[in-house]
């Protein structure tokens, strides 16, 4: 299922603090619709933390404060009358390690739609087929939808998780290193799927694999935490081709050329 809205994010001076300690500060960027934005940077630079602000998953951890403004399609997502639970049906997420529910393939995919109140068997069947097709898994499992999700391979499970996230017709799909736990072939399949999905849906992907970012993304944002007593910052953001061939900031260049991991 693909999204209806435009799925545009506007971040302005976003900061994240855990209790008294500020982890990220001063992040401002625009995430365009129907394109892939990659967040890259060395580990610990806060890219996953920033990603989890976009669907307010950070709310689930106690003591986290998010400052600045994050707007989805012009509306502030941390606004007083915004329901985080409802937001997550519009901004989906796929995690680093595949985490299907211990249920059948079918039940995994319909979990989201059922939460939204879809009841009719025919509708659910249709959603299952289109979500699994969009995730490039339909042909492999269409005859065995009742099969337990844990019997699938790692790559298949991750595609199932993608299908599950797509089943709520989100406008944006957040992906936190979705291929890093998979073998190279499955990883490639995920990349192909992302390339197909971006025609209809905004994708924000966190990855530590620079080549992957260069291959699949339209826009790249580089984050860095320069020392433990300063919060992480967004160093540079721009067109992927430009970032990787002619970055403006010296630090970006250093990271891209592998001078630090």
């Amino acid at each position, binding site marked *: 299922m693909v999204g209806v809205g435009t799925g545009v994010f506007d971040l302005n001076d976003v900061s994240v603090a855990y209790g008294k300690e500020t982890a990220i500060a001063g992040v401002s960027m625009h995430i365009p619709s129907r394109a892939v934005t990659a967040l890259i940077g060395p580990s610990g630079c806060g890219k996953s933390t920033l990603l989890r602000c976009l669907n307010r*998953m950070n709310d689930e951890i106690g003591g986290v404060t998010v400052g600045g403004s994050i707007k989805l399609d012009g509306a502030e997502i941390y606004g007083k009358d915004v329901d985080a639970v409802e937001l997550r049906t*519009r901004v989906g997420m796929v*995690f680093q390690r595949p985490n*299907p529910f*211990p249920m059948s393939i079918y039940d995994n995919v319909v979990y989201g739609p059922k*939460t939204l109140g879809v009841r009719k068997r025919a509708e659910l069947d249709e959603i299952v087929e289109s979500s699994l097709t969009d995730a490039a898994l339909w042909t492999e499992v269409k005859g065995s939808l009742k099969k337990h999700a*844990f019997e699938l391979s790692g790559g298949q499970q991750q595609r199932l998780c993608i299908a*599950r996230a797509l089943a709520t017709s989100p406008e944006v799909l957040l992906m936190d290193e979705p291929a890093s736990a998979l073998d190279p072939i499955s990883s490639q399949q995920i990349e192909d799927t992302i390339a197909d999905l971006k025609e209809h849906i905004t994708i924000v992907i966190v990855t530590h694999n620079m080549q992957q970012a260069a291959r699949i993304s339209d826009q790249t944002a580089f984050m860095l935490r320069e020392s433990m007593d300063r919060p992480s910052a967004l160093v540079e953001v721009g067109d992927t081709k430009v970032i990787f061939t002619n970055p403006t900031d010296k630090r970006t260049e250093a990271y891209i050329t592998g001078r630090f991991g």
Partner: protein
Amino acid sequence: MRHAQRIRQARLAEATMKLITGACLFGMVGLTVFILGAIIWRGAPSISAEFIFAMPKDNMTAGGIWPAIVGTFWLTVGTAIFAIPIGVSTGIYLAEYAQRGRVTRIIRLSIANMAGVPSIVYGLFGLSVFVMVLKFNQSLLAGALTLACLTLPVIITATEESLRQVPSDLRQASLALGATRLRTILRVVLPAAAPGIVTGSVLGLSRAAGETAPILVTAVAFSAPLPRTPFDRVMALPYHLYIMATQAVKPAPHIVWGTALVLVAGVTIMGVAASAWRSRQRRRIRW
């Protein structure tokens, strides 16, 4: 030279201690086997269809023990009805909602202490609250409520531990799909934790079935008809065993041992069935 001697001494000490501690363990295992064996050996001759399904005759010295079996059955069902919803609910609260703090600590302390309260104290508690204050009188209901209080800590602990074993990945996935905390718990976490919860509950219930002291003053009569309402007094296997073994005017050892075997068999079957079911569920879900 001395070094080699020390090593020899250490080896000897190890062999000796292994023997001693091993003897403890094997003694314990042997004792268990002996206990079960004695019950089966002495009790088996009494078991017959009549023994199980017939009513007692001749002042309890002949016939069957059917009313005691029925009484224990209903007491256990009643215990389940009261203890499982509250126990599972409390377990959910502790595993999914409770914050670290003083109140939670006190709750946990209360549960741990409840587990250590002597069963006769529960009996007196049940007597004063359910029998006297709430005026249920000595009845199936009062007995079941009392046994439920006794069983609560076991179910709470089993529930909480089973919930904690469910990986947080699954909760994250559900929340990211736009489900509320509660829906996540009810649709994803609880079903995944169900095997452990069911097993723990059944084990707790099987223990309740074997308790005598709590029902001594709240539910039982030595001779009672089959219960028609929850307000009737009942017979129960452990109480029947106790009276027949210590106070029967005319000794009837075959009844006594038969009752013991039925009780132990019932308790063991419950426990074994629960464990077997849990193993089967666990094999399907490998975390």
